[in-house]
């Protein structure tokens, strides 16, 4: 992007995020949710849209919607309804989607995000409940929808509960959009209502993007962009689309209202359908379903059970546990707060425990394609490790080895240390014997130290460490050598 245009135009962006809930069963039927199962193994008359079948609402999905609404500071509607969104598509079993329309369950919240320019508040228009579609496999030479010879439909995903979170058009840049999506994902994960994997589609984000000359009040023509499969591609798509729109306006062309598809490989967007092709959804209240009217007792019970939210956790880690802000952000972002709190409760210092979590444990998990939070080490084990280093039993280097053993399921740090005989030798008698032996073997080096060459002591320390198979306490070795040679 040229700097000239950047100062002339402002982007106006609203985000629509769909989150697949990880309830045990689907939104309107009792089919178990099972990602990645064999095709059409998780279907029933209801989620196949068989004639005569009827939907019944999953109570847990409603609870999840209320949870997210409360976390986003929304008002929970005293009464909300389900509507039918009518359009024909092979992967939609009833050829209408049960969704919410003019009376969604949550209204009017906000989300605070941190950007390089400080805190930003993005308004939340609504959160509503709906059902997912099935999945089409496009068969043909291209493997994509365009150019496919035919398609094969699997309805395992059809009817999985979705929450759709619609933001106000408050986002102004790719950076803000990325921060918004990252924070929303962190909230969803903290609430435990979805695994929210963008790459796998259990969280999806569409962006409505328009530009206008800076200072202009009216919005420009908006373009909806779909198919971004990561936070990074959301950022790329927005940057591309802003640039495309600016180029068009600069070239005197008119932007048309349409839906565009983000092509990850090409790094471009292309037309999916124009406004003229947009469907008339013919929303009307679903006569098969009745109102959702959560009473205040239920809402308060859900509120009382809300976990600490990411923003609260970051503040607490910084202010109460003394972590630097960025370290607190990483711990929270990687969902390691619980592990940290457990370690601190077991006596570890928070900065040290956080250090292990963010560096070693996260690194180990990432190498294995796991979420850091999935790393199999408890906070108590972590505290033990920190203590073993603190009391000089383990060197940092040995502690890393011990941690790896813990992560590989070989036991607790103390158990592993005992089993492998890894305690540092801090016993003066045992160390003195090794030190004397090394001084005798390396008489030249010892003499150079006596002659005032302080650096030469390094070689002797190294030799002692080697002779002790790494178990000698380096500080004590240093001290003993100095006493012998310079004392």
């Amino acid at each position, binding site marked *: 992007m040229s700097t000239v245009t950047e100062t002339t135009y402002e982007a106006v962006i609203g985000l629509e995020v769909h989150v697949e809930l990880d309830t045990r069963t689907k939104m309107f039927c009792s089919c178990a949710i099972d990602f990645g199962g064999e095709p059409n193994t998780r279907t029933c008359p209801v989620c196949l849209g068989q004639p005569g079948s009827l939907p019944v*609402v999953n109570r847990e999905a409603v609870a999840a919607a209320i949870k997210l609404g409360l976390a986003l500071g929304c008002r929970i509607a005293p009464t909300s309804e389900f509507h039918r969104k009518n359009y024909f598509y*092979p992967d939609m079993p009833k050829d209408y989607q049960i969704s919410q329309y003019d009376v969604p369950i949550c209204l009017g919240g906000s989300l605070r995000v941190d950007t390089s320019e400080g805190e930003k508040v993005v308004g939340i228009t609504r959160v509503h409940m709906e059902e997912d579609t099935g999945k089409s496999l496009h068969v043909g030479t291209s493997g994509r929808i365009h150019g496919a010879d035919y398609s094969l439909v699997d309805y395992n995903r059809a009817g999985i509960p979705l929450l759709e979170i619609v933001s106000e058009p408050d986002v102004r840049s790719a950076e803000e959009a990325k921060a918004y999506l990252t924070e929303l994902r962190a909230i969803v994960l903290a609430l435990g209502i979805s695994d929210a994997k963008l790459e796998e589609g259990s969280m999806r984000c569409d962006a409505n993007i328009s530009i206008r000359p800076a200072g202009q009040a009216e919005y420009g023509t908006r373009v909806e962009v779909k198919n971004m499969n990561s936070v990074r591609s959301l950022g790329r798509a927005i940057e591309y689309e802003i640039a495309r729109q600016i180029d068009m306006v600069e070239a005197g062309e008119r932007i048309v209202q349409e839906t565009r598809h983000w092509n990850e490989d090409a790094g471009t967007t292309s037309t999916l359908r124009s406004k003229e092709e947009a469907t008339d959804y*013919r929303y009307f209240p679903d006569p098969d379903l009745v109102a959702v009217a959560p009473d205040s007792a239920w809402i308060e019970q859900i509120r009382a059970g809300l976990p600490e939210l990411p923003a609260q956790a970051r503040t607490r880690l910084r202010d109460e546990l003394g972590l630097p802000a960025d370290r607190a952000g990483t711990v929270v972002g990687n969902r390691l707060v619980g592990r940290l709190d457990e370690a601190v409760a077991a006596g570890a210092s928070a900065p040290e425990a956080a250090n292990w979590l963010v560096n070693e444990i996260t690194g180990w998990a990432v190498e294995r394609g796991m979420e850091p939070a999935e790393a199999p080490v408890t906070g108590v084990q972590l505290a033990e490790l920190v203590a073993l280093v603190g009391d000089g039993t383990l060197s940092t280097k040995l502690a890393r080895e011990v941690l790896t053993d813990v992560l590989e399921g070989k036991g607790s740090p103390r158990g592993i240390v005992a089993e492998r005989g890894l305690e540092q030798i801090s016993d003066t008698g045992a160390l003195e014997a090794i030190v004397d032996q090394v001084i005798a073997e390396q008489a030249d080096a010892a003499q150079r130290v006596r002659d005032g060459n302080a650096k030469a002591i390094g070689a002797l320390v190294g030799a002692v460490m080697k002779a002790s198979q790494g178990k000698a306490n380096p500080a004590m070795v240093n001290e003993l050598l100095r006493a012998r040679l310079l004392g």
Partner: protein
Amino acid sequence: MSELVTRTAAELRDLLAAGEVSAREVAQAHLDRIRATDGRVKAFLKVLDEQALAHAGDVDRRRAAGEPLGPLAGVPLALKDILATKGIETTCASRILETYRPPYDATVVKRLRQADVVVLGKTNMDEFAMGSSTENSAFSKTYNPWDLARVPGGSSGGSSAAVAAFDAPLGIGTDTGGSIRQPAAFCGIVGVKPTYGLVSRFGLIAFASSLDQVGPFARSVTDAALLLDAIAGHDPADSTSIPEAKPDFLAGIDKGVQGLRVGVVREFMAEGMEPGVRARVDEAVARLEKLGATVVDVSLPHASYGVAAYYLIAPSEASSNLSRYDGVRYGLRVPGETAEEMMANTRAAGFGPEVKRRIMIGTYALSAGYYDAYYAQAQRVRTLIIRDFAEAYAQCDVLVGPTTPSTAFTVGEKVDDPLAMYLNDVYTIPSNLAGAPALSLPIGLDEHHLPVGLQVMAPVLGEPAMFRVARALEADLAFDPTPRGANALETPGGAAA
């Protein structure tokens, strides 16, 4: 022809319980009657001889072994082909579902099995229950046993004709705008549209979800109440099912009308009714007064808007309910280059003209820019009709009036005039819009020897009072349900009277 087919369900139940007859004999007698008459009546799309005899045999075996049996064990029934039967064709009389065999049973079908009712077969209907004559079936017309040149009414014309023809003592229909009561009136039998939510809709192939309700046909009021009792009750698979316990339909059924207030709906007695219908309805009201009821004049001022509201609400819901017939998961498929073409070709070939008409009306009424003027406005009229009923019931316990403006019309008479056909439902529609129960009782014949029906309406869950009034009048009038007249089907056991 066995005289067993002339018996009511209650009589058969007692004969079976006393061991005077076996369920197999009862089933066989009715299957024989179907074989003898259905070539002319064409009530059935599919007769389930084997299943019926097997089920009857099983009932006999369990009775002999002293095992527990359902309340209507061994009593035969004709089932409208709109209720899902696992593994058995369920067509809605539509080409689009001609070969469809559901992978599950409707809740009503399960309850019938629990009652040990023997299902004889699946009956003809207007395609997707859209019609008032059963002429909209994709497969066959059905003929009125009282005059084989006339329609049996609809959409549940197959079940009502089967019960009137003595093919079965009981029938199951569905009523969205009058589809049980109007054919009951045309065929001289009892038909009940229960309170909305009293009988599960799970497995009832939807026409208009907020109006559809399953209900019984019988040749006596008590039989209708017995069948309703067997199928009613809360179903967790239907979100609109009433969770409270169902009323006791039978406890007070023989108590008479002494002390009851019967309202006569002024607007229903105004113009538009055939003189033969008016005469019988007037006589019936007079008898009710003689029997001790207090007759009061009441008004439903917005009832006349009911047809207009109904023909917006029902097609709107139907347009969405019928979207799923797209050639992808079940039913007919007509090829096309693209998925969209395949869908449009399939639906063009699979739906008949009336279904297409209603899909078009509904799609239009819900489309951008028209929703408020049509659909939302129709739902407001619905509110006004509910308020009208509430005011009327402040003055009386039940309401009465004609079920239909005319007796059965001739085959082909109204097929080319959809609006005239729709106006047949003018008296029945308000109860559907209000979700309230209503019953049609045969009260006599017009000058053409065609039955006339009296509609008895009650407030939501007011079935006990409705049955009580109907039963009192039935006992007093002693209407003979045997079809008779020049062009009638022959009487069971002999030639046409």
